[in-house]
């Protein structure tokens, strides 16, 4: 459930990326470090100065991009959110926190927030056991292992927009493939179709999201499985542990850091979810599948209430930031700390 950043959630993506990159760095650096201290400059500059310059030179483009495309838009969004603004002309109509109040009093936004939470919870509840089970199965030596792994990863590789359009067509009532298949075996979907019935729409979206992002969970878990030391399995085998015991007592606990990182990505992706919903349902029917991101896009681009849209985007940003920080503080911290300790002992 990673939402590849688009304009709507780019600011929030920024809050998430430092968190994930620290993890990657910590893991990667452990080996890279010894080679890092390069020999100092020979042309009079002190090695420290030269190193600083090097760092500055190489990070400046990225930093500038970050400032222009992440920090600056966030600042602008906060600014827009305290004005009533139609999208053009100067900012003159200062309204203070009125936009925030109207967003937080808007049932549609509150429902959208609830949908985000429901999607986040169900993504983890469904994809974790399912992904884990499939990853464990795929980790066994068997014929066609690689082909199976590739196959399972295909939905994730598909662009989200394309996947959504395909599913939209499959789910058409009466003429869609799924309805046709159901009717040939004597079953009937909801009369208004899976996407056209407010009672079914959100569940349908979650099913499609699961199909799309299960591959990512599996591939991450598979990668995590490769880091479990072979000796542990051998030792367990000598002790006479069954396959099931090995998985429960050794594999899954050692997969912990991977699972926690994946759950983090999944959660942030769920909070920022936009493209899939936008194409499948546009937030409808009867607002049944709105997310915070579709709400703010509708308010902004469709209704020209850019002030309200900005307020909603700031709220979305804060929600994601708080969720990310809490998660890091209470759940991910274990992984980061234990890794740091490990490095010190080395």
């Amino acid at each position: 459930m990673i939402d590849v950043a688009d304009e709507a959630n780019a600011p929030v993506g920024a809050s998430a990326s430092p968190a994930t990159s620290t993890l990657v760095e910590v893991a990667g650096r452990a080996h890279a470090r010894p080679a890092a201290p390069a020999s100092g400059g020979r042309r009079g500059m002190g090695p420290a100065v030269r190193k600083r310059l090097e760092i500055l030179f190489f990070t400046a483009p990225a930093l500038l991009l970050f400032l222009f495309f992440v920090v600056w838009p966030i600042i602008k969004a906060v600014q827009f959110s305290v004005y009533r603004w139609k999208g053009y002309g100067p900012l003159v109509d200062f309204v203070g926190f009125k936009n925030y109040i109207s967003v937080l009093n808007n049932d549609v936004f509150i429902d959208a927030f609830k949908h985000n939470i429901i999607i986040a919870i169900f993504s983890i509840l469904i994809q974790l056991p399912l992904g884990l089970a499939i990853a464990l199965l795929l980790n066994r030596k068997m014929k066609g292992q690689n082909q199976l792994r590739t196959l399972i990863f295909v939905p994730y590789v598909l662009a989200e927009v394309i996947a959504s359009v395909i599913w939209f067509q499959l789910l058409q009532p009466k003429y869609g493939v799924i309805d046709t298949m159901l009717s040939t075996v004597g079953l009937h979907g909801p009369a208004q179709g899976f996407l056209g019935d407010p009672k079914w729409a959100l569940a349908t979206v979650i099913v499609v999201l699961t199909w799309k992002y299960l591959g990512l969970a599996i591939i991450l878990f598979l990668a995590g499985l490769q880091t479990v030391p072979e000796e542990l399995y051998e030792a367990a085998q000598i002790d006479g542990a069954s396959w099931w015991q090995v998985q429960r007592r050794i594999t899954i606990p050692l997969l912990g850091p991977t699972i926690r990182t994946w759950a983090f990505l999944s959660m942030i992706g769920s909070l920022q979810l936009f493209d899939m919903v936008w194409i499948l349902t546009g937030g409808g029917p009867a607002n049944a599948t709105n997310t915070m991101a579709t709400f703010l896009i509708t308010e902004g681009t469709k209704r020209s209430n850019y002030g309200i849209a900005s307020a909603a985007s700031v709220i979305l940003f804060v929600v994601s930031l708080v969720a990310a920080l809490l998660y890091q503080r209470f759940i991910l911290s274990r992984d980061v700390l234990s890794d740091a300790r490990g490095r010190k002992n080395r």
Partner: protein
Amino acid sequence: MKRTPVLGALALGMSLALLGACSSGGDAESNDDSTGGGETTITWWHNSNTGDGKDYYDQVAKDFEAENPGVHVEVSAMQHEDMVTKLEAAFQSGDTPDIYMERGGGELKDHVAAGITKDISESAKETIDKIGGSVAGWQVDGKTYGLPFSVGVVGFWYNKALWAQAGITEPPATWDDFFADIDKLKAAGIEPISVGAGDKWPAAHYWYYTAVRECAESVLQESVKTLDFSDPCFVKAGDDLKKIIDSEPFNSGFLSTPAQTGATSASGLLATGKVATELQGHWEPGVMQGLTEDGKGLGENTGWFPFPTFTGGKGEPTAALGGGDAWAVSNDAPDAAVDFVNYLLSDKVQKGFAELDMGLPTNPTASQYVSDPALADLLKVRDAAPYVQLYFDTAFGASVGGAMNDEIALMFAGQASSQDIVDATQAAADAEK
């Protein structure tokens, strides 16, 4: 250590230069109003980006250049959605093309308030008089800001063959007749009506039309101006719509059906003979042609009838709901731009426009040249109508219109009452004041 900041600045500068190099490509298409030496360049954006329409507009620009030495017309033909998006960005950046398409109503009001659009009441007076009543949708506080070049009306497009198959010989004049026809169509195993409620506005057209049938012209005019919806006719409009929805005439899955994209959209269903009828604007035949493999749409089976009436409604039975496109001039455009929009509405240019069936011309001298029979019929209906009510969402502006459309779509989903629609619209309108 002292030199670090200098070198640091250098490093920063270099990366800035790199960034600059990346972005300079975007600045290339600046639209200067004039290029010294008495030469004037005017920029014109339009959406006839294919076939004869594009060639025709290129020719129009060339003719104008020939008649006005020293004036250069820079034409940008864009696909409609692209144009709308680019216009939106142009309004925000203040880099508006000299001549652009304006849909009128609340949108125009916002543009005028932001100082984007030029008042052409005086400079285009002759043309305005000639066009007559249609221009009303492009007036703000008595001043004219756009010259409509095509105004169409909404009505029911139907598949003559499917209606005949259900044993119906004549299109309905009242809703009581229509309800009977809906039952006949259903009995014949045909889905009566498709509606793209997923996109909301096609569903909203139903409420607009019931309001046009229930409300007197003066009430509608007043409500557009004052954004006051307290007249009971608006609630009655909702009640009428409720009746229509309760007769369950719509295609399965209509709540998520898109308006006109793809074969399973509302227009696609009509074009491929899957449903019998659809309420849609004057562009429908063209859309249907694009959605069928042979490029003919419904072809000979295309039929059209106006929105039926309700007994006891206070509205004019022949009044129509519609809208159109106008040429507007941006505030800082040179005078040549105003000359050009006058030229675009001239007898000559509108005649060619009509001959190519590019729309429903507003210059009365051009009406006779429309060759497409469906469009010609529509033109008669439009010209016979006592007035053409601009789509409410356009008339009220995006903010109020959006809230209204959302609530109407909720009624289609069975989750809003007649009063809810009025309340939601009024609440959004009050937030504007």
